[in-house]
């Protein structure tokens, strides 16, 4: 009897992808709860009762102050009813316990703008950001992604490349300095890079849909347990999600599901 893996997906304030993320967690073998942020702020649900935190895609507060900016501000400052600590406190406790966090799209933007990724020095200061696509437009298209096999990222273990949809207007990854970028590369934290069909990282539009520095599509923290990416793994869990499923022979299970399986297996073994 495998141990129960408990995944939580936070909903509310403009989060949109909670249902399909929860479904992916479920297919990967986890018990997944969709929890509205009001439940957390009311103190009825505690993050630390879970192993796997999912920050799903969406438009927190409409991205009105820049993607996920207002959302990050809420998580940093909102108090939990009847508790001394803020929600941010709970989150740091969760991370300190070595548990897993995956942020997709708006969730990735949230992690970066809260300083939780890449957190190279573990001081949780923001050193990177995700900003307007070079085209200045929202784009929905599928992208090839090169996986760094030497990355500590636990989610991409055993993977070489991925094919997933991007759906964002603010996905251009930028660091605060060349030094930060160099550290990210040296530590192999740049888990995913936009690539051409042959999986060579590229700066060319549309294979690189937003002009990200060093073609970066996703990064993890030095532990490999915190992971954020702009493409949507939960949007490719079955072959009928693939844009060419009517003309190609594809495995029944979509590539995106592998990331969730890796997370669940890791938790079963290590947590």
């Amino acid at each position, binding site marked *: 009897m495998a141990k129960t893996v408990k995944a939580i997906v936070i909903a509310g304030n403009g989060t949109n992808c909670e249902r399909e993320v929860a479904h992916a967690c479920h297919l990967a073998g986890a018990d997944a709860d969709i929890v509205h942020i009001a439940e957390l702020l009311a103190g009825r649900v505690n993050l630390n009762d879970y192993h796997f935190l999912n920050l799903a895609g969406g438009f927190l507060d409409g991205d009105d*102050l820049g993607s996920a900016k*207002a959302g990050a501000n809420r998580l940093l400052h909102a108090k939990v009813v009847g508790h001394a600590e803020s929600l941010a406190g709970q989150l740091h406790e969760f991370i300190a316990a070595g548990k897993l966090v995956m942020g997709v799209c708006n969730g990735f933007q949230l992690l970066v703008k809260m300083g939780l990724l890449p957190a190279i020095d573990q001081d949780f200061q*923001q050193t990177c950001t995700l900003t307007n696509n070079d085209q200045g437009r929202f784009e929905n298209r599928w992208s090839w992604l090169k996986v760094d096999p030497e990355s500590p990222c636990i989610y991409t273990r055993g993977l070489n490349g991925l094919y997933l949809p991007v759906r964002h207007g603010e996905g251009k990854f930028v660091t605060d300095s060349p030094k930060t970028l160099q550290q990210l590369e040296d530590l192999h934290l740049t888990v995913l890079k936009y690539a051409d069909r042959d999986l060579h990282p590229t700066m060319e539009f549309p294979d690189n849909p937003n002009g990200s520095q060093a073609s970066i599509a996703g990064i993890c923290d030095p532990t490999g347990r915190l992971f954020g990416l702009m493409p949507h793994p939960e949007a490719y869990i079955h072959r009928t999600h693939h844009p060419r499923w009517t003309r190609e022979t594809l495995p029944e299970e979509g590539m995106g599901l592998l990331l969730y399986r890796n997370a669940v297996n890791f938790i079963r073994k290590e947590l």
Partner: protein
Amino acid sequence: MAWRIVVGLKIGVKDARGVRIQRELKEHLQIDLPAVRTLDVYTVDAVLSDAEVEQVAAGPFSDPVIQEYAINQPLASSFDMLIEVGFRPGVTDNPGRTAREAIQYLTGRPFADGEAVYTSTQYLFSGLTDKVIAEKIAADFLANGLIQHWTILSADELDPQGGVPVTVPKVMSDTAPTVRSLSLELTDQELLDISRLGMLALNLDEMHKIKRHIADPQVVAERQKVGLGSELTDVELETLAQTWSEHCKHKIFSAKIEYEDEHGNQQVIDSLFKTYIVGATDKVRENLGKNDYCLSVFKDNAGVIEFNADWSIVFKVETHNSPSALDPYGGALTGIVGVNRDGVGTGMGARLIFNTDVFCFASPFLEKELPPRLLHPRRIFEGVVEGVEHGGNKSGIPTINGSIVFDERFAGKPLVYCGTAALMPRLLHEKPCHEKKVLVGDHIVMTGGRIGKDGIHGATFSSEELHEGSPVTAVQIGDPITQRKMFDFLLIARDRGLYNSITDNGAGGLSSSVGEMAEDTGGLELHLDRAPLKYPGLQPWEILISEAQERMTLAVPKEKLDEFITLATEMDVEATDLGNFTDSGYFHCLYEGETVSYLSMDFVHEGVPQMVIPAKWEPKELSEPDFAQPEDLATELKQLLSRLNICSKESVVRRYDHEVQAGTVIKPLTGVTNDGPSDAAVYRPLLDSFAGVVVSHGICPNYSDIDTYHMMACAIDEGLRNYVAVGGDIDHVAGLDNFCWCDPVESEKTPDGKYKAAQLVRANQALYNYCVAYGVPLISGKDSMKNDYQIGGTKISIPPTVLFSVIGKIADARKAISMDVKQAGDLVYLLGATTDELGGSEYYAQQGELGSRVPQVDAEQALLRYRTLNQAQKQGLVASCHDLSDGGLGVALAESAFSGGYGIQVELSYLDAEESLREDKLLFSESQSRLLVTIHPEHKESFEKLFARQSCRCLGQVVDQANLIINGLHGQNLIHVSLDDLKQAWQAPLREM
């Protein structure tokens, strides 16, 4: 005092917004500038300490990695001209609202009444010194004077200390709430003046009806008991004007129409709606008998049909034309979030699963001089697309089906159709979820946004009265996030059984929503002073009819009220108890305890007199054009592919999230490079099931210039054709009609009213005949009947246009079919005969001709064909399937080929067509009900067996070389062109939009 926080990008960070504006100025206004940069400005009108402002600027308002900020001093430098654009007072400012919330989280202090944050944008131009050009850029490109104001400063005018002078666009109003009452003992002219000046749109009959009612001694006696008398209050007059408006009562569709056909036969039609629309659905449901899958038709905000044993599908399509003409962005955004409320407000509530959108514009490349007050079609295009993008994407609803139709007459009024589908359980707490009933004593609870002067009297062209300091009443801007939060809350409240009924606040605001719900109980008591306001100074009548967005009205039983309000508050949603539903028989409104409206429910809802409209059908004298077959048909084909009505809309489609919720199985773009045009969308609403919803549409206003009867028939067939092409089940399908007409009521302004009314009658007759013939029930719909532009001598009327939307199911989405050819060697079939039907076609339009032989639909043969195609699809015989529409066979062959990345070779001599028909006509005829199908050779026998005794011809096959090869009637080569050329021609026109 107000703080000004200016946020800009650090040196060296690409300003994508600025670059885009620079590019568009060059392309659209031919103004070529070396650089354009942008800054965000937050004007914070609240009491904060210096430290707090610093913290706010450094925290939520700016991004330390790429941005810098300045407080109460300019950030702008090295520019020649500055334009700052901000909102006028009272206009919805979503970033301002979010900024306010962010500050409250940071300080832990709520804002005081009147405190607020206002956002604006600064544009910095290099190489621009001429103020006149700057003014043009602001007025014609950056801003919309209806909702925004701007400041223009040259570099030397900018105060180096203070920066741009602070403007706080706060709504100023010192008018105390008052209720005027007026006597209607007036002359006809005076009555009409009241209607016109008050923008009430009540005609003389209606004013007389009200006058007689209010003079009735019994009525007066009843009114005296509550402190009113023989005079009408402004609240009452506005209530009647709203409830009796064309928009709410559909007076033209309910009118008595005196119709005379081309043979002089006369006929009186008592309500087009009842006779043809409800009539068709009744007949179809009768024919379906025990297989009837309709659950709720016409009576609710949207229609409901069965999906499977546990779930039902909700579908509605709305138009938002006039608001989009005024403010394309706000109008379209409000259109989509507005129709979303229809979906959620149906039955006991539903979860939204996808949106659809169809636009009708004039060419964005139009070079003509436009009459006053009309925005250039390019601005309409840009604004509408962005509005629907924000409305759909931010709400987390995929936009999976749509199209754009171009005709120069849509410069007079663009058409913006927004559709939405939702999913609801068949049963909720053991009761059908698609039904609801208000009980006497239930509380009237309003949730979501607050009430402002938004949308009072709807969006009319009367907005010249707008001036600084007066809130915009013509235009509204939607707030997807406030609405999303409300929807999250409502679904939980529904599942906890916290209310008895729900509806949305749209046209007419509370007066309509509460009024309609109160028909269940026969009365209401509404306390207008309890309604939460965006700002003070609203009159009681304004509170009642305001169309401020993001609001739903619910009937909450007394014992659930506390639980309902508590849940709302916890989920950061405003919910307010405004009174009760009663059985008093009266529409009873109070303000601070005083009765301000006391009208009998019967009079409000049944009182409106029926219009009588004359209609006379006289077919136009039209003839077929006389021109020789062009030498070079390959060039004709490429030109067709480049026509706006046919070319790729990829640049628009990619801006819509069409995959959120992970249900989209057949996406809008398909094929070997994900850029071919799908005929319809297939969507899995339940992640653990393969049952699919199929959605498509038909629209062909170009045929209206010949005969609206066949326009309607073709729209229905096109919708169903697209639907079956992807595998939609023709025996489980519903239709939804959206009429957009030019004013069909004869008057001085509309001398040709009789003809336009006859066009309307004929379209309705076709709607009835074809829906019954196809067995397709209509489940909901809407009409917009005043799509004309008239200022001074200029009048532009849109072509009569009906969007026919189709929704249904496919048992197993894994059996869905896409339109791209799949592999070399596959056989290419054409289902359906080709005849000389090019009247109103794209090919004739390309020759500058209209023609007379408009396509006609044979429903009986088409239905058999569609059923047989369903069988072939179920048996897995079909590799690809594409419908033939604009541009006929030639265009369909090209699209299927370049989408699949393989060539096609066909023989025109194999077509099922009249001997005499010319090759160009065979290629470009728009004969209906035809489909292009490819199959693997091993399925030849079983496929042909299925279609034995039907029009089904093998024209050729899919080939390895990437060319389209079409041979003529004598075997000679007619067209031999590379797929790259064809695709390039098809993609080029709107690629940069």
